[in-house]
């Protein structure tokens, strides 16, 4: 059977090119983070697909469909848990991979394009997180996305337009949910798969980089003691030194892929373990009237959320747009900014300083955001009146009902107290009584109120009276 495929596809060439290729000497476990990112993406794709079999992206049904998964679907909570923890794990692993690549100076010649594609992948990973956590349509999802899209609105000139495009209109609603879902399920996966394909191709085509200290030593040896180390290696020097490292290296299969496999298995095992041990939170259903809720984004956006506190009012867009833009411009231009002769971080003081400071700043901002989370504000939704009841309240004040009745603890004693009347009389009785008391109680002293009030006004009063305790 192998022969059948070999005759048609030359699988031997594919096998040797992809799997038996030599990986440079010196490659260590830090290099498994890239494969681990990809493995986590597959986990997200599988669990996400299962969740998509049940999820309904409309405000009426989104929450119920997620609850259905959590209570009625076999393994539902585990699948959702893996997806939830997997998302955080993917952010962590992608960031670590980026830090290792940055630390090793692997964005330098000839891997600049790989680095740029990687920046794209970094952005896509965060975009997945942002679009994904709106989908359960619980309180956290709704409020975090309200804040997030408001932030987009702070951009000068085009802010309002951007905010409307993100939300699918002026308000956060059904259109927001469907376009976030379409982005999360279709657009971002397509973009990610395309970028991953290019990224992987380049990694195989060019080979992975050599750990920087080893590399610098080898280049120095190759050049000899008399050549100065003031310029980066020429492409001829590069290829000569690289070939030597490959010669002394190991095969991808099985020597290196086993490292990838074991590390990825451990990471996935950790994610599944977290999913099994800890239940994934699902707060109450989204309620736009909940003024007591404290909106917070997912943890990996907390640093940005915290940063905005230092940019008041009109300067907010600086924090939203300018700083992140500067950050990405820095990353993109990095291969041109850092043209030093050495790759080792010890000899790249500026890059190392900028990288180190960024990590410390983000870590501090995240920690500070957690520390300064205010407790939930008072939830007074149960004691609020509806607009009908407010009208009724005003009518009661205007008609002087308190001259005969106690209402809200105050009033006359001529008629019975109306506090708690809902427990004694039905709404229909109250309504009819107000309209013409003598219909129900022939000896009533109370005047009829229909007229001077209308039927609707009497109904408003009735609804208000029913709220009295």
């Amino acid at each position: 059977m192998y022969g059948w495929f070999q005759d048609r596809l030359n699988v031997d060439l594919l096998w040797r090119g992809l799997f038996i290729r030599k990986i440079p000497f010196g490659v260590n476990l830090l290099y498994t983070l890239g494969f681990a990112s990809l493995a986590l993406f597959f986990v997200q794709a599988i669990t996400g697909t299962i969740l998509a079999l049940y999820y309904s992206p409309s405000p009426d049904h989104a929450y119920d469909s997620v609850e259905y998964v959590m209570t009625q679907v076999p393994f539902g909570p585990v699948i959702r848990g893996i997806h939830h923890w997997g998302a955080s794990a993917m952010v962590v692993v992608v960031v670590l991979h980026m830090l290792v690549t940055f630390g090793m100076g692997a964005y330098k010649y000839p891997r600049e394009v790989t680095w740029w594609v990687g920046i794209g992948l970094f952005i896509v990973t965060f975009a997945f997180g942002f679009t994904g956590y709106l989908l359960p349509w619980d309180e956290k999802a709704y409020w975090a996305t309200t804040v997030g899209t408001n932030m987009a609105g702070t951009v000068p000139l085009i802010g309002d337009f951007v905010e409307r495009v993100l939300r699918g209109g002026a308000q956060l609603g059904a259109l927001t949910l469907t376009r976030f879902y379409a982005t999360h399920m279709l657009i971002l996966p397509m973009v990610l798969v395309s970028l991953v394909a290019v990224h992987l191709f380049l990694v195989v085509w060019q080979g992975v980089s050599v750990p920087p200290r080893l590399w610098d030593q080898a280049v120095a040896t190759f050049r000899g003691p008399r050549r100065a180390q003031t310029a980066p290696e020429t492409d001829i020097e590069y290829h000569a030194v690289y070939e030597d490292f490959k010669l002394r290296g190991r095969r991808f299969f099985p020597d290196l892929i086993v490292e990838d496999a074991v590390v990825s298995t451990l990471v996935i095992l950790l994610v599944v373990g977290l999913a099994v041990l800890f239940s994934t939170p699902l707060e109450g259903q989204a309620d736009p009237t909940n003024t007591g809720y404290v909106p917070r984004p997912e943890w990996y956006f907390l640093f940005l959320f915290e940063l905005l506190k230092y940019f008041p009012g009109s300067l907010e867009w600086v924090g939203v747009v300018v700083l992140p833009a500067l950050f990405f411009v820095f990353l993109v231009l990095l291969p041109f900014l850092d043209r030093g002769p050495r790759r080792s971080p010890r000899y790249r003081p500026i890059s190392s300083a900028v990288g180190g400071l960024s990590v410390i700043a983000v870590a501090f901002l995240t920690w500070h955001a957690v520390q300064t989370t205010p407790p939930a504000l008072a939830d007074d939704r149960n004691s609020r009146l509806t607009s009908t009841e407010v009208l009724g309240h005003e009518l009661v004040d205007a008609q002087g009902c308190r001259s005969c009745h106690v209402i809200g603890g105050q009033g006359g004693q001529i008629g019975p107290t109306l506090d708690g009347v809902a427990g004694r009389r039905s709404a229909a009785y109250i309504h009819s009584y107000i309209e013409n008391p003598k219909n129900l109680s022939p000896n009533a002293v109370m005047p009829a109120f229909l007229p001077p009030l209308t039927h609707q006004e009497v109904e408003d009063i009735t609804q208000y009276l029913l709220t009295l305790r």
Partner: protein
Amino acid sequence: MDSPVAARDTDRRTLLAQIIGACVAFLAALLGVPAIGASVGPALTRQEAAWLTLGNPENFEEAVPKAVNLSVARRDGWIETTEVKAVWVVRQPGPQFTVFNGRCTHLGCAYSWQAAQNEFACPCHAGVYGLNGGVLAGPPPRPLDSLPVRVENNTLQVQYQDFQLGTPEQAPA
């Protein structure tokens, strides 16, 4: 040439390949079992039909079929809907009760009791059934479908379900 180094290398490579295989198999099981369970699960669970009330048994006259409209709650995933379904209740000596599903077994039209002719008649294709549900004339392929019935706390109760139409054998819908 089979030097000891080459042989050791081959053994090492085989072991590493086996470790990779083990990792892949382990992950396939770890993720595959919940994935398949979650995908297939709801298809296999059957909803247990609730007992719905038809009324006091005394309300039904012997040998006089009476139609009753039932509000049947249906769970569709996370959505609960109520549908109105018709059944015919026939009381026999005992008292025994037979409750027929209100759909004609031919193509599902609503049939009705014709007191003058002492038979159930379907207006769509002239199907005719007797008091016991047996087919007397017309295209219906099988007798009327009877439903599980019980008397509990002096209340007549039935478990509603629909059956496939147009088949000689009764099968759940």
